[in-house]
Every structure is written in C-alpha cells, then in structure tokens.
C-alpha cells in the first residue's frame, strides 16, 4: 500500500479561520476541523498504539483536550503540529497506563490457511517480527519513528511537533533505530 494512499503523509493544513472560530467557542467550526482531520489523527494514533480501541480513545481525548486548550493557542497556523503533539502525548499516556493483555487473533497467522511460498513467508514473518519489535519500544521512540517513516516528516517538522530542537530529533531518531535493532535482536532470540 502506498503511503500517499492513506493520506496521512502530508496533513492538510487546517484553515486558520476555522481554528480562530473554534478558539472563540464556535462548535460548528470545531466540528469541521474534526471532520477534516480526525481520520489522519486516528491513523497516527493507530500507528503508534497498534490497537484500534486505544487509538479511538486517544483520538477522542486529543480532540477534547484540543478544544479545551484552543483559546490558549497563540499561532492558529500551527494548529496541525500542535494537535499532533497532543495526540502523541495522549498515546504516550495511554501506553504508560496500558495494562491490558494484547489480543492475538487466530486468523492473524497466514500459514494456517494459505501456505505461502518461502519468500512470502519470510516477508510476513519479518513484518511480524518488526511489529513485535516496534511494540517493545517506548512511546517517544514509536512516535518519532512514525513521524519519520510513516508521515515522512522532515526533521524540522518533527521538531515542531515534538517541541524539541532539530539536533535532538536527529539524536532521538538514531536512538530509536538503535532501540529497534536491539528489540529485533531480542525478538529474534525469542522467535520460535
């Protein structure tokens, strides 16, 4: 699947006028903002959390928080970056408090039904391995990898979203890659 197909690589800038109206308490303007951006926001949360229910909750929490804090937003033009930061904070909080056991669907194993060839099986197995390794990472590392690899954001954009310096973004990206390598090693050792 192409990244452009899921329409989250380059978020559509929210209308400054709508943001200003919503900041003044206009619920209709806020509804239009939500309708325009909720799918993108949900997919960002889903990529970080990997769980649909959690992603829904994180998206809802993020928008409600955005609504509450909108009067304090000084630069309406930066609404998207501001909202992403709220979403990532919501994901971080959700991962921190996550105590639930991860559900594994029986249908998730493609070998039971399709018996694919060795190359496809390796690809699927590697993808699963990467997903498990990714799930071992903490929220900050997940967020920066999602922003970089899924949303294809530049270092400066990631810095704006996370509220950190560009140099720190580079360092954190390198750290997240190293952590992913360690997680892959650990997953490879525990692989059946």
């Amino acid at each position, binding site marked *: 699947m192409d990244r452009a197909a*899921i329409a989250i690589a380059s978020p559509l800038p929210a209308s400054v006028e709508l943001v200003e109206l919503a900041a003044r308490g206009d619920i209709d303007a806020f509804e239009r903002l939500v309708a325009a951006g909720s799918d993108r926001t949900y*997919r960002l949360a889903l990529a970080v959390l990997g769980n649909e229910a959690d992603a*829904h909750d994180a998206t809802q929490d993020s928008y*409600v928080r955005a609504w509450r804090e909108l009067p304090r937003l000084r630069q309406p033009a930066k609404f998207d970056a501001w909202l992403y930061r709220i979403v990532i904070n919501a994901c971080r909080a959700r991962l921190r408090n996550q105590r639930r056991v991860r559900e594994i669907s029986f249908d998730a194993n493609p070998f039971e039904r399709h018996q694919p060839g060795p190359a496809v099986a390796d690809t699927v197995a590697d*993808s699963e391995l990467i997903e498990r390794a990714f799930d071992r990472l903490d929220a900050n590392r997940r967020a920066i990898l999602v922003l970089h*690899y899924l949303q294809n954001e530049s270092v400066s954009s990631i810095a704006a979203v996370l509220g950190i310096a560009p140099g720190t973004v580079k360092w954190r990206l390198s750290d997240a890659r190293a952590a992913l390598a360690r997680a892959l090693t650990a997953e490879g050792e525990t692989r059946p």
Partner: protein
Amino acid sequence: MTADRLLTQSEERLTQMLVARASRSARPDLVAEIVAAAQATPQRGRSIAWPAWPVLNGRMAIAALVVATTVLAAAFFLDHGRRSTPSRRPRVRPGLPGPARRQPPGLHWRSRGGEGQPTSLVWSRAALTCR
C-alpha cells in the same frame, strides 16, 4: 537473518508495517462522539456559559453593599448623636399631668374638639414646660 541485516532492510519493512498498521479508518461515529464530548467540556479561559448579566449583577451587588454600609453607618451615627444630645431628650417633671409627662417637646397634631373634629398643629405643653 541477523538483526543487523534485518535492520538494514527494516527501514522499508518498518514503513510497510506502519502503513499496514495505520490503514484502517476511524469509526464513522468518531466525529460525532468527539463533538458531543467537546460540547460538554468548557474551554479553558472561557467562562462556563456565563453571560454578561452576572458580571453586572456582581457590580450591582457591590454597589448595593456600599450603599447599605453607608446607610447603616449614617443611621448609627445619627442615632448615636441623638442619644448623646441631652437637650433632645424630653425632660419630665414629676408634678405635671399624665399626657404631658410623656409628651415629647415640639409640635404635635392635636384634636381640639374631640374625635372627628379638625386638628391643628400646636406646641405641646411639655415643650413649653421643658423650656
């Protein structure tokens, strides 16, 4: 496959995995849920559905408090002044007849010819005797 090799390939695999992971759409009712939750949440720095009139009422309450305090203070000092002025008190002499003893000094409406008759403003007897 070693982790290093996998990691080398993993950037592309990671992207594919994240795209696949984020390919599901949100529930259709998510927007309605968010808007309903937002409607129940007050914005920070904005009053909770308080129109302008309670502010006016607050000002009016302060004004009423100031007026009431002034009136009470004035009443207290006037009363204090009246009580502390001996000349304003009616002096009663034991030898005078009943009504006159209790009559305060000054002008009073009095009936001259009994009930139903016109009254006139007269000086009370006590006022005359007090002086």
